[in-house]
């Protein structure tokens, strides 16, 4: 197989650069204490920019959870948490982290010990409980940034409430770090954050092209920096390089899958322990998952962020992220992506770990069917815990779904 030149050509060259950056980042994080630097554990939707500006190293238990899933260590660590008394119905990121922390488990020998925890509940209520547990376990201070849900919008009262908390957040960091915030640096970090998000969106947008130079499965991998190193020059440089590579691929006609005939949209978190299998399964049908609602969530609030006054715009930016919206607004976003990327069908991962992402999918599916007449495949699974995954069942469903898509014919062709 290694000799297949077409396959070699399809490999994304930036992958090795990304691995290098992530390795360096984790080494830096794990040796933080030796270098007199502080580590904060932070939720994936949390405001990382003030940490970067304060020279604190952000560490993401959710990113760790994804690595645990991809390394197929999820079952074991989830079972460890269950032995500690945590129900097997709880979010597997939380379970894997709670199971890994006391034994330094997982593919990188555990996360560095936190000096503080920063929890933003704009993604779910689970993180609030999870961070309470870890704050007690590590006996470190916890800051909660509470972002009221935007069921139908964001009220002025909510905006003021969150803005007040952003100020408290900075005060919290100043107290833990023992030095004042450098607002000039903060403004620079804010600009880099926005630039990084724009570049990430531009990378994702290259998939508008047929054939798409990258798939959602690639995006799941290249996402890591916009989550962990948002607000740094490293992330900006990396996405610039990745964008150039994607444009080059477009120029050379290189697609993410060998023969792209059908284009699909993925919803929800990846099934980390099965990404390769899934991508090959779809590719065998000539289908490419060209976009997803998950990786694009890290640039979903760009319209609310202001590069000239980042701090002031953070309140709304962090409150109006994808998972914090009502499902009708989520459906609007899905329809927007269906049109933008000209997809033929929707693949929804009904993820028993993640209630805010998954409950409501049936309604979104119905809205999409009514408004765009697109079929949906629902895959029952879990992002990290393989016990919730039945390969034969998923395979049968994918095959049946693709037969239906084929019978309809590709949407974009000849239209």
């Amino acid at each position, binding site marked *: 197989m290694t000799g297949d030149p077409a396959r070699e050509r399809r490999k994304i060259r930036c992958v090795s650069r990304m691995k290098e950056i992530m390795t360096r980042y984790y080494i830096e994080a794990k040796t933080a204490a030796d270098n007199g630097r502080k580590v904060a554990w932070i939720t994936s939707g949390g405001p990382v920019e003030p940490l970067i500006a304060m020279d604190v190293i952000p560490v993401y238990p959710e990113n760790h959870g994804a690595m645990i899933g991809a390394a197929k260590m999820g079952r074991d660590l989830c079972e460890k948490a269950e032995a500690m008394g945590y129900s097997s119905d709880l979010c597997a990121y939380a379970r894997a982290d709670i199971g890994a922390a006391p034994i330094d488990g997982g593919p990188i020998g555990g996360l560095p010990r936190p000096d503080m925890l920063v929890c933003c509940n704009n993604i779910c209520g689970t993180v609030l409980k999870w961070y309470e547990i870890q704050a007690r376990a590590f006996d470190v201070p916890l800051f909660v940034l509470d972002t009221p849900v935007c069921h139908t919008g964001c009220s002025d009262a909510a905006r003021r409430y969150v803005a007040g908390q952003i100020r408290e957040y900075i005060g919290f960091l100043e107290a833990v770090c023992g030095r004042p915030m450098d607002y000039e640096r903060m403004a620079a970090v804010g600009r880099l954050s926005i630039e990084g998000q724009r570049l990430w969106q531009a990378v994702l947008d290259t998939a508008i092209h047929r054939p798409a130079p990258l798939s959602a499965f690639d995006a799941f991998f290249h996402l890591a920096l916009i989550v962990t190193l948002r607000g740094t020059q490293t992330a900006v440089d990396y996405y610039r390089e990745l964008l150039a590579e994607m444009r080059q691929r477009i120029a050379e006609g290189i697609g993410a899958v060998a023969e792209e005939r059908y284009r699909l949209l993925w919803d929800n978190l990846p099934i980390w322990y099965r990404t390769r299998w899934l991508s090959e399964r779809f590719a065998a049908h000539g289908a490419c998952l060209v976009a997803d609602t998950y990786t694009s969530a890290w640039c979903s609030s760009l319209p609310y962020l202001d590069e000239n006054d980042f701090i002031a715009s953070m309140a709304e930016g962090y409150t109006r992220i994808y998972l914090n919206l009502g499902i009708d607004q989520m459906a609007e976003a899905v329809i927007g992506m269906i049109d933008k990327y000209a997809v033929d069908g929707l693949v929804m991962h009904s993820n*028993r770990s993640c209630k805010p992402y998954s*409950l409501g999918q049936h309604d979104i599916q119905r809205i999409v069917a009514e408004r765009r007449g697109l079929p949906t495949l629902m895959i029952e699974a879990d992002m990290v815990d393989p016990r919730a995954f039945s390969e034969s069942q998923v395979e049968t469903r994918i095959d049946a779904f693709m037969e239906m898509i084929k019978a309809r014919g590709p949407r974009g062709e000849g239209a």
Partner: protein
Amino acid sequence: MFQLDPLFSRIAADPLAYARQWKADTGCPVIGTLCSYAPEEIIAAAGGLPLRLLTTGAGDQGADAHLQAYSCSLVRGALSDWLQGRLAALDGTVFAHTCDSMQRLSDIWRLASRDRFHADVLWPATVTAPGAEAYGVELLKDFAAAYGRYFNTDVDDSALTSTVRLYNRIRGRLRQLYALRRERPGLVPGRDWLAVMRAAMVMDRQALAEALDAMAAALAEQSAPAFEGKRLVLAGGVCEAPAIYEIIEGAGGEVVWDDLCTGWRYAAGQIEETEEVWTALARRYLRRSVCPAKHAGLTSRADELIAAARQAQADGVIFLYLKFCDPHLFDYPYLKQRLGDAGLPCLMVELEEPRAAAGQLRTRCEAFIEML
């Protein structure tokens, strides 16, 4: 022997029949609420009847079209009741943001009910945040304004002030009953206790205050036989498993206290009548006994539970959880550990379908009580 006012049992058995009658008599709206954080005082001050929804027990048909199997029976059952028209008496519904499942239920409910009033009262998750109170006051006013616009009414300060007084009277009575329950276990059988609490979240609140006054007066003259059995605290979210009381009593125990959303957390918290009314109201919600979906510090839930159990001289704690209830299930290992450190044994029962769980409950509760 204590005789329960049959009104309580009647309302508890069929809250919606009561609501329909009330609506026919008064011509005023009936508003469903799904959580003890719904600001009932505002609904009542505007002339509406706040009606706490649990499930009617008719099952969860139709819920599958909207909700996956990994949502709790309350969320699924309530949605089914709504979709199947069993809640036709409601003129609107008020959600108060708590857990992730409720958050999405609110969206699904709203999309399925365009011709009814719908509101989300988004209380802070961090009830102790410095800005929580100012935000709380604003959200109460926003809610009152939205309610007023929809029903073409007005919640003025004086109506709210007198409703606040009424609620203080009600909750004060409920707390008095809780103290009696602790001091004289068995005085009010568990089944009756459940009926009172259920009715308290449904009844016309003026009539409720009067009925509770009468109940307290009648109880003052009653003496309970000395209780020698095991004293238990019941903790969890909603208690929709009436069988639990008879099982506990049958095994020689009594529930002497609870930490339930449909129990103490509803009764807890006086509204300061000397303070500006909106601020006082917001404060009550932010400071009352905290729900696990909210954050009031790292140890507050355990501290409070242990203090209550000690004060009630409890022999043990029974946690009654709904399957898939994230906030409670996350709290459990820590609460168990802290209770253990305090020398209090506990039992956790996770119920998929609480109304149909008598068998499962019996075996486990009996074994637990026997062990105490």
